[in-house]
């Protein structure tokens, strides 16, 4: 049985999640992993070198349409490779990332095969792949069986492997191949867009006072700012606060914002959705205040306070001020 891993790369480097995917794949098929690299002309060799030893085989396609990410091109290429393979893959694995959210469902549509996205664990039982997914805002977990299909697709949540990926000791064979893609793909990459640098770099702060949806209103951010001022901390936030334009994007902790590792992270009214949690869970001390005792943030916080942030935060502000004299 073979498992294909779609390697994710950007600007000539493999993204961290690719190594996780290779380890996930190896666990499923006892090592018979094929790494698939879709890259622009001249980019493939360097990327393939990074895979060496971590897969049994690397399938390398260099095509001008792959010089920048194009989900349509990637889905068409993978469909063509999978359908044309002597030994078709049992499972095609990718990352649940900005790229994976674009190409994977498209590929599932093209191949008309079962797919799950955002799996946090995969297992093979007999001939069927079973995926574990986290649903309903992290409050429940669902197991989905992809049964009875020749081929399945699964994308995996980055960072969901507990253990460090094991390095295989195999020499990877490289198989260069090509795919025939239509000249008009219907969409074209135009440019990278980099977020404008702001005045504040939250990733440099020792203490972050971070607010989430529970802050309820723009005016209420004063509560966090008062605490931050007393502590000598910086104010950061989770995604909904930026979506509402209550704080600028540069303050956002999360996958699409900044990853932070302060000495102290105080989460006020943050539920702790994965996109946020993964970017702050390595903070040395996490204190969370939330009304909902079942909020996922309490799973990663060191200290939890179930209560009203509008009472707890001002009390803490007063205590800090008093202590500092």
């Amino acid at each position, binding site marked *: 049985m073979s498992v294909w891993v779609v390697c994710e790369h950007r600007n000539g480097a493999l993204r961290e999640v690719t190594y996780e995917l290779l380890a996930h794949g190896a666990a499923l098929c006892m090592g018979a992993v094929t790494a698939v690299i879709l890259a622009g002309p001249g980019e493939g060799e360097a990327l393939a070198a990074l895979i060496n030893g971590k897969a049994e085989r690397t399938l390398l396609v260099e095509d001008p349409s792959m010089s920048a*990410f*194009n989900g349509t091109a990637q889905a068409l290429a993978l469909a063509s490779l999978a359908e044309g393979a002597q030994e078709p893959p049992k499972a095609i694995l990718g990352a649940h990332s*900005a790229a994976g*959210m*674009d190409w994977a*469902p498209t590929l*599932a*549509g093209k191949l*008309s*095969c*079962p*797919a*799950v*996205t955002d799996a946090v664990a995969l297992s093979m039982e007999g001939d069927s792949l079973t995926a574990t*997914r986290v649903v*309903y805002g*992290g*409050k*429940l*977990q*669902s*197991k*989905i*069986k*992809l049964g009875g*299909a020749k081929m399945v697709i699964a994308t995996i949540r980055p960072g969901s492997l507990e253990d460090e990926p094991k390095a295989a000791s195999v020499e990877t064979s490289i198989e260069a191949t090509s795919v025939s893609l239509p000249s008009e793909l*219907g*969409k*074209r*990459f*135009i*440019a*990278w*867009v*980099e*977020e404008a640098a702001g005045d504040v770099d939250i990733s440099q702060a020792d*203490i972050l006072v971070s607010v989430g*949806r529970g802050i309820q209103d723009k005016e209420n951010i004063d509560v966090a700012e008062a605490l931050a001022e007393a502590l*000598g901390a910086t104010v950061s936030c989770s995604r909904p606060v*930026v979506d*509402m334009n209550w704080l600028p994007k540069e303050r956002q902790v999360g996958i*699409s*914002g900044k*990853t932070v590792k302060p000495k102290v992270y105080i989460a006020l009214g943050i539920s702790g959705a994965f996109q946020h949690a993964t970017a702050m869970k390595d903070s*040395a*001390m996490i204190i969370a205040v939330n009304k*909902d005792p079942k909020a996922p943030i309490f*799973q990663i916080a*060191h*200290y*939890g*306070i179930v*209560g*009203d942030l509008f009472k707890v935060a001002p*009390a*803490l502000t*007063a*205590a800090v001020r008093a*202590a*500092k004299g």
Partner: protein
Amino acid sequence: MKIAVFVKHVPDVAEADLEVAADGRTLKGAGLPFEMNEWDRFALEEAVLIKDEVGGDLTAFLIGDEAAEESLRRCLAVGADRAVRLWDEALSGANPFEIAAAMRGAVGDDNYDLILCGAQSSDYGYGMGGPLLAEALGINSVALVNKMKVEGSKVLVTRELEGGWGEEVEVNLPAVISIQTGINEPRYVSILGIKKARKKPIDVLDGAGVDLSSEGGKLVVESLQAPPLGEGAEFLEGSPEEVAERCLALLKEAGGVL
């Protein structure tokens, strides 16, 4: 321009105690508040903004039962010209492939230039509806869009990437665009506005035109349960002042920051 938007009616689980039904596979929805999926609110607003800018008509679609119509009323209240709801009991507990088949069935033979939907839903979060619909229709799709502008027969979008980056992509119409939150500021809808929208008709379709037999639908929910809990936080209890004193002590001892 013919514009469509798909919205979903989902349970608000933010402060709810969730219970799994006796079958061990589905959520007990009774008693939970329901609302329009957060991503779809942004997709709806974007659809209305585009309609206002380039002209045309906007049809709002929803796959759901009668109780879900509230989200369609909201669409009508903010500027949708027409609303279509498709439902069939066979869609109860449907997986993303079945939902996409229903979406395809609801669109029917109407050729929309632009179809918007949320990038994912807050309940199951597969994020597959938009791209699968596009494949079923044989048109372009682009996912996770946080900025867009229609330019003639094309649309210039920015896809949100990790770490504050984005990528600008030009897409030929017709296309399905999956919208990320934060792309705009969804307008406030008054209760009066929604009440007024009650007078507008909603077209109701059954599942007669929906093919649920696709190979892609072979997903079987084996279980739904509470996630395994880790050690979790040590909870601090007491009055706000007592809790604040404990926090202060922790910050001094372990945090090393005061």
